[in-house]
Structure formats: structure tokens, C-alpha cells
């Protein structure tokens, strides 16, 4: 039972480590979740086009951050190259839609499947690496991919430097929705699905195994957990999530090019995960809001040095909320509980 596990975990696991995401057991949190969902569905009918676009991108980043969080927050493997999986997902969807005429709603799971395979295959040799060395290996992947995408002999598929332009999907069944509104609702549906799957995954034995490996790999191995398989699978699932986000992102922006997916994207995703809150499912949403809106706010504050302002805000947040926004909310809730 959930509560049994939590009491046992509280004894065994070192203090301060975050336990698996708690199920919203109370009626209040269930109601809050429902209210959030209703508000999210109503959003496209209240906002203007550009803000719907920004809200859709927040959802896309939330899925990407959820993927990275699975790997880094819950499994303790640092990845500085998750932008590469985002790019692979985006290009997989774009190539399927542009070169093979696959409908957009099919290209998203296809891109996810592709990234699952790639992530798993990358995770296998990465088993030998720990901590900083794994970070460097993933960093290398994140650096190499944009250049690979510009590679001459792949140009027929990838479109080279100019990239691929995609058409925006229309609302199906002649629903009276703008393409922007429909796209938001489509992305919302996929996001909710991914969040639910993540929650169920983390609540099950796989989730507990992941957390055990993160906290005490040797003890986990002696308890009978197949570390190698679990870590590789986590890599695969994490890549799949970020790949699905990439595919959705490609459809929303209607454009993929190698320069959209530089190493800076990988670092931005890591920033989002940490700011949102490691090992926290709602943290993915907070982090997504951060990485979508703070650069714009920073540019409004200072046109000359927006990234300096961004850095200042980031450092301030780290001082005020070292466990991320989710951690801060948890602390506040505990204080007032």
C-alpha cells in the first residue's frame, strides 16, 4: 500500500530525499486538479492567438521536462544533451509529415517510438558512465546532433540548413475551432496523457526501482533490481517523453531547422527541471512556465543584456527556492498543513 511504502521508505531512505509523487488522496487536491484541467481547456477561448501559441509551448516544454525529470530527478542520471532527443523527435515527426505524408496525430507516437529506441540504445553504453562522465557523454550528443542534421548526405531528408516547413493542422470533423485552438487542445490531451502515464509509472514497482537506484544503487542491486535494465529503460522512456515533446513542438512552430536545437536547448531543459523541482511531476509544469516566459520578461526589463537579467533571476530563484518551485510549494504546504 502506498502509506506502508512511505513509512518504510522514510526509515530506509536518507532524510531529505523526495519520495515518489504522492497520490492526490484528499478530495481537495482532486478538486484542485479538476479545476486546473477545466481552466486549461477554457484557456484557448479566452486568450489571443499569440498567447495560445505560448501556452501550447508551455505544455510542450512540460512534457519534455517530465521526460528529463524521469531521468535526472527520479533516476539520478544527469543528462546535458536532452535537446538531442527533442530534436530527434521533432525531425522524425517533420520528416514523416513532410516526406511521407503521415498525418500529424500519427507522427507524434511514431516520433515517440523512434526516440524510445534511440534513448534505450544510448542508455546501454551509458551504463558504464556515472555522474559527471555521463553528463559529458550526453553533452557530446547534444553538441553533435545539430551538426549531424546539417550533414550533406542527409539533406534530402532533413532539408539541410533551411530545415523543413510544416503546415498547420486544421480542426478535424469541421469543428468550429481555430487551428491554434485545436492545436492547443490536441497538445493538452497528449500532455495530460503523458502526465497520467508518468504518474502511474512512478507509483508502480518500476518507479520505486528507479528511485532506489538513484538513492543507493548498490543496495538496489542487492534487493534484486536489475540496475542495468532499469537504467536503460529509464533512458529510453525519458527520451521518448522528450521526443514526443519535440514532435509536438515541431507541429506547433511549423518549422524545424538544425539551429533550433543547439546545446542551449539542452541546458535550458536542465534549467527548467531544476527550477521546477527535481523529482516532482508538477515541477515539470512550473519549469516549463519558467523557460517559456522568463526570457521574454528579461528582454522587456533590459534590451541590451537580457541574458544577464535571466541569470540574475535564475540565481535569485536558486537562493530563495533551492528545491525548485515544487519544493517551495511543498514546504509552504507543510508549514500551513
Amino acid at each position, binding site marked *: 500500500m502506498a502509506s506502508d511504502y512511505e513509512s518504510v521508505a522514510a526509515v530506509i531512505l536518507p532524510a531529505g530525499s523526495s519520495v515518489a509523487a504522492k497520490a492526490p488522496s484528499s478530495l481537495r487536491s482532486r478538486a484542485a486538479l479538476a479545476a486546473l484541467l477545466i481552466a486549461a481547456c477554457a484557456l484557448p477561448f479566452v486568450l489571443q492567438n*499569440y498567447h495560445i*501559441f505560448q501556452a501550447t509551448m508551455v505544455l510542450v516544454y512540460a512534457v519534455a521536462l517530465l521526460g528529463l525529470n524521469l531521468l535526472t530527478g527520479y533516476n539520478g542520471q544527469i543528462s546535458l544533451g536532452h535537446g538531442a532527443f527533442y530534436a530527434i523527435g521533432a525531425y522524425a515527426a517533420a520528416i514523416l509529415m513532410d516526406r511521407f505524408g503521415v498525418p500529424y496525430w500519427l507522427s507524434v507516437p511514431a516520433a515517440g517510438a523512434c526516440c524510445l529506441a534511440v534513448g534505450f540504445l544510448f542508455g546501454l553504453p551509458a551504463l558504464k558512465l556515472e555522474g559527471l562522465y555521463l553528463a559529458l557523454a550526453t553533452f557530446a550528443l547534444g553538441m553533435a546532433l545539430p551538426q549531424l542534421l546539417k550533414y550533406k548526405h542527409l539533406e534530402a531528408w532533413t532539408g539541410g*540548413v533551411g*530545415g523543413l516547413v510544416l503546415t498547420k493542422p486544421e480542426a478535424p470533423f469541421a469543428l468550429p475551432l481555430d487551428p491554434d485552438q485545436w492545436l492547443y487542445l490536441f497538445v493538452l490531451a497528449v500532455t495530460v496523457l503523458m502526465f497520467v502515464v508518468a504518474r502511474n509509472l512512478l507509483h508502480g514497482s518500476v518507479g520505486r526501482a528507479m528511485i532506489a537506484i538513484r538513492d543507493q544503487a548498490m543496495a538496489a542491486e542487492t534487493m534484486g533490481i536489475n540496475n542495468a535494465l532499469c537504467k536503460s529503460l529509464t533512458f529510453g522512456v525519458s527520451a521518448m517523453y522528450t521526443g514526443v515533446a519535440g514532435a509536438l513542438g515541431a507541429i506547433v*512552430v*511549423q*518549422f524545424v531547422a538544425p*539551429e533550433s536545437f543547439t546545446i542551449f536547448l539542452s541546458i535550458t531543459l536542465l534549467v527548467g527541471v531544476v527550477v521546477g523541482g527535481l523529482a516532482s511531476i508538477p515541477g515539470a509544469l512550473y519549469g516549463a512556465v519558467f523557460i517559456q516566459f522568463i526570457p521574454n520578461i528579461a528582454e522587456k526589463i533590459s534590451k541590451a543584456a537580457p541574458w544577464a537579467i535571466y541569470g540574475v533571476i535564475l540565481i535569485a530563484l536558486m537562493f530563495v527556492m533551492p528545491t525548485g518551485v515544487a519544493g517551495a510549494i511543498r514546504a509552504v504546504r507543510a508549514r500551513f498543513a
Partner: protein
Amino acid sequence: MTKIWKAFVVVVCATVLAMPAQAQKKYGPGVSDTEIKIGQTMAYSGPASSYGALGKVQAAYFKMINEQGGINGRKINFISLDDAFSPPKTVEGVRRLIEQENVLALFGMIGTASNAAVHRYVNSKKIPHLFITSGATKWNDPKDFPWTLPFYPSYHSEAVIYAKHILATKPGAKIAVLFQNDDYGKDYLKGFKEGLGAKANMIVAEASYELSDPTVDSQIISLKASGADVLVQFILNKAAAQAIRKVHDLGWRPTRYLSSTSTSIAAVLKPAGIDKAVGIYSLAWYKDPVAKQWENDPWLKEHQAFMKKYLPQDDATQSTYVPGVLIAQTMVQVLKACGDELTRENVLKQATTLKDLQFPGLLPGIKLNTSPADYAMLHALQMVQFDGTQWARQGELMSVK
């Protein structure tokens, strides 16, 4: 019944009286009685930042127009965003301009690859995408992309002229081609090969480079090794400066051709070494501020005064400012012609019906003409050759499609 009838008559009269007043002023997005909002993305940073001078001078020109009273009493609100010549940033910037800033029109955007990324989007949203700083063939497509107009002369036609020139002056030549590996370079290359026609086998070596590559030295070395005696370069400013220097330093003396977008003496030839650039052929359509032939031209005095007043920190001899001003002047002309009907449709209509528009900055004999069937702006080019101090004119104006 009579009351209702009276009310009906009053309403009809009111509507009829109101209509002429409304028909006089029709505003699209971004327009009010006091301002017109137009936007662009421009390469102020990144590997093509030397072209940022275009956006800079356009902002200065609009400032001058605003100080002189604006266009039909309305001030120009010019929003120019930096896209670092990177297509993803262009997509982001254009989206912001159209959906957040609600500009009336886009104009003077730079970059073949950058504009290609937003080509479909702006046409589907029916935004005037005017006077692109690129001569790629795809911009002249009134049937499929009616909202996009080029300004720069067709790259395809330019390359055909180079091909014909080689066939006429050096029929047995061995040609090496250096081109940028994107839509810009490939458009030129295609035109060049078509211009050579059956003699396309005169090309003995081709080398491409990415805009983001730090140097083109290795490409030049491999082209020299091919034994070619003609070098055709479809490259942008930064690579052009490097190529000119490397070719000279290697002791290689082929007959060189350089694309018209990269002939700035201040931005390309001086950094490369003026003496190393002697003999290069190119095509021109606007006046060079350092050319001897325009020394006493009233245009030069006006241009220098304008630069001194509005961009005093900048090098007024840099030729990049001239096409920037020309594009801004054309935009002002289009907006003026709209009068009080400042809708996107009317802006497009005025832009596609320019007749024999002449500005002092254009070479004598070159006029701007557009029609709904042919969006190409410039229909004549002048062959030039660098002689150590200026791009000297060779022969007569050549007409292009």
C-alpha cells in the same frame, strides 16, 4: 407602422451618409490616424551581421521621414527584430510581429533561408511580405505566393550573365565554383549551370561551405588543386573576404566572379586587402559612394548629408547603406500611394503596380517596375570590375528577367 417606416428611413439615411466618410479611411492592422506599424527581422548579430547595416539605415531613413511630417500625416513605427540570420529565430520574430505586434506589413527581410522559413506562413496569413533582401527565384511566384515580393535582382539571372560572360570571353576555361550550402548558394549554382547549358562540363570543381563555418580556406585550397583558371564565388560577405585573401595568398590568379550581394568595399574588400581584389567581376544596380564617377553627383552629397545627420558614427562610404535606403524609399512610396486606404490588400496592390520608379541611388537607366504577373523589381544590371579603387562599369546595362 408609420413610426417604424420613419425609423427605417432614418437608419438608411444615417448609414448612407456615414458610408462615404467610412470609405475615405480604411485601416488594416497596425494603422491609426497617427501611425503605421511595419516590421522586419534583420541580421544584427551572427555570421551575417555586416548586413545589419541595412536595417540600421532603414530605421534612420524612417526617422528622417517622420521628422519631415511622416506619410500623409502618419508616423512610421518601424519594428526591426534581430534574427541573427538564423531561420528558427526568423520564424519566432515574424510570429511575434504578426500575432503580437500586429504590423501592417513586413518588408526588407534578409536571408534566403530565413525568408524561406516563413514563406508559407505569411502567405497563409495574407501579410504583405515585401522587398525581400534576397534574389532567390522562389520569391517571384505571384500564383502560389502572391504576398511575397523580392527586391534584389534575381540570383538565377545574375548567374546566367556570369556564365554567358565566361562563354564569350574564355570559351576554353576550367571553372571552379564556391557556393554557400543553402538556398542562396544553390539558387545561384542552378542559374549558373543553366547559363552554361551544354557546356556545364566546364565546371571542373565545386565546393560548398556552411554559413556557420569559421573559414573557407580548405575549400579554396581544394578548388585550386583542381587546376581551374576561373573562380566563381556565390558567397556572402564574411566568406568573400576570406576567399579573396586566401586565393591571393596561395598565389592563384584565376579570373574571379563574385555575387553582387558581397561587393562592399568597406565590409569585404578592405578586410581582405584592396590590392588582392583587383580584377574581380560582379554585377551592380546601385551607386557606390566611393566610385569616382559619382564624385560630383548630387545624390552623393545628399547621401553623405543624410548619413552625417542620422548615422554620424558609421562609415558613410560603406556601400551596404545604399540598397537599404532604396528599399526604404520604395516602401515609403508604396505607403504614400495607399493614401488613406491603408489595408494589407491595398499595400500589396500598390507594391505590385510600380511603374518606372526611379531613385537617385539607382544606377542611371535602372528603374523599378512590378506587375501582378511579374514581381521582379529590377530588370537590368550593370557588369562591373574592381580596378583597385572602385567597381568600374563595363559596357552597357544588361536586361534580366
